[in-house]
């Protein structure tokens, strides 16, 4: 069965430069042909050969036993691995679910406790101090706020590939930079509080993307995205006139994203979770900077205790 172009039997074989062709043409180990040729060449009698062959024959039987052993072991191993793998998977899923519900529970408890803290504080503090604190909290995003404003709604394009630009790359999606732009345009249009899908933006908030997911303050948000902002009555007009809104309208026209602005009365924006400041220490200098005064602008006159908002009341 040796290939016809191979040289004389027993001759040293050199691998052809195109190993793959050789592999496809002649899949059998060349050693078999060599051994057969050697056997044919040596003029041994069949009987003597048979006797002498016994040790090697038994060795090959042992090898066959080993083979069966190997197959059985591999089969059992694979079968044993399989439930383990799916178990690990479902275990992880269950853990994730459990942790999620735990997080939800804890954050609702944190909200309750925060409410209670502010209630107690209101009771403990004198009226004007408590009011100033509440104002500070509201303006920094640590307190819940209510008011009239606008809601900007952004949504991914519907999942069909007819959009000109997104023909090959799936449906066009809202990018984190879109959300950033909208939030920035709203700030510059006079917004005093902004929340994205119920995530209040604070001075340390981030809007970024990690893979496919959009993270606002490291919490994932999914589309459709609703950016709610509380601000003056002129905010809607200013926002609509902003370059960013024009850009988004154009993008929406071109790609099929949906982009809408509507006014909404009596919005309630939730409080942001307390920022965990680990490196920035509140400085209690007697003459705080101008920015400290500005951040406490609604109703605050005494800049002596601008400490509390960033320190989280601790």
């Amino acid at each position: 069965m040796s290939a016809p172009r191979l040289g004389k039997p027993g001759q040293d074989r050199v691998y052809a430069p195109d190993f793959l062709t050789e592999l496809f043409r002649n899949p059998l180990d060349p050693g078999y042909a060599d051994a057969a040729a050697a056997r044919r060449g040596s003029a041994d009698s069949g009987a003597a050969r048979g006797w002498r062959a016994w040790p090697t024959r038994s060795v090959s039987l042992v090898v066959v036993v080993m083979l069966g052993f190997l197959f059985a072991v591999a089969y059992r191993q694979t079968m044993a691995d399989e439930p383990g793998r799916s178990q690990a998977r479902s275990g992880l899923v269950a853990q994730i679910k459990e942790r999620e519900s735990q997080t939800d529970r804890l954050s609702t408890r944190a909200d309750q406790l925060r409410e209670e803290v502010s209630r107690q504080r209101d009771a403990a503090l004198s009226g004007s101090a408590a009011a100033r604190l509440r104002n500070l909290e509201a303006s920094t995003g640590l307190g819940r706020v209510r008011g009239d404003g606008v809601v900007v709604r952004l949504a991914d394009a519907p999942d069909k590939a007819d959009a000109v630009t997104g023909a090959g790359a799936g449906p066009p999606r809202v990018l984190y930079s879109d959300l950033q732009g909208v939030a920035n345009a709203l700030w510059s249009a006079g917004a005093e509080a902004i929340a994205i899908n119920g995530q209040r933006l604070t001075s340390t908030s981030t809007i970024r993307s990690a893979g496919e997911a959009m993270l606002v303050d490291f919490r994932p948000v999914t589309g459709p995205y609703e950016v709610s902002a509380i601000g003056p009555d002129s905010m809607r007009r200013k926002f609509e006139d902003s370059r960013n809104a024009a850009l988004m309208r154009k993008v929406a026209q071109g790609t099929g994203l949906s982009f809408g602005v509507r006014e909404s009365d009596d919005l309630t924006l939730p409080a942001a979770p307390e920022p965990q400041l680990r490196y920035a220490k509140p400085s209690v200098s007697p003459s705080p900077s101008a920015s400290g005064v500005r951040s406490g602008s609604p109703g605050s006159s005494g800049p002596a205790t601008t400490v509390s908002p960033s320190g989280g009341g601790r």
Partner: protein
Amino acid sequence: MIAVLALLAGVVLGVWLDPTVPAALQPYLPIAVVAALDAVFGGVRARLDRIFDDKQFVVSFISNVLVAGLIVYLGDQLGVGGQLSTGVVVVLGVRIFGNVAAIRRHLFRA
């Protein structure tokens, strides 16, 4: 015939003893099985070609398994374990296919 009995004996032994494979060797088990299959089909084809040789069979089995394991081990150390084991599987798969095709020709004349 004896070979088939020996194979069955090996399977029974494996099921009966139910050895636990050391964790370090577990990644190499599938590749060892593929290499062993290559040796087996090579041997069957050689027997049908009437050029079977015990020594060649034993040596090809052991060296196939060892070399395949070694290549994958080396790949793991170099960080290309997946690709190298793919390469090993392709080469051995091609050989198995070729040999099985030859066996088929022998058995069915087709």
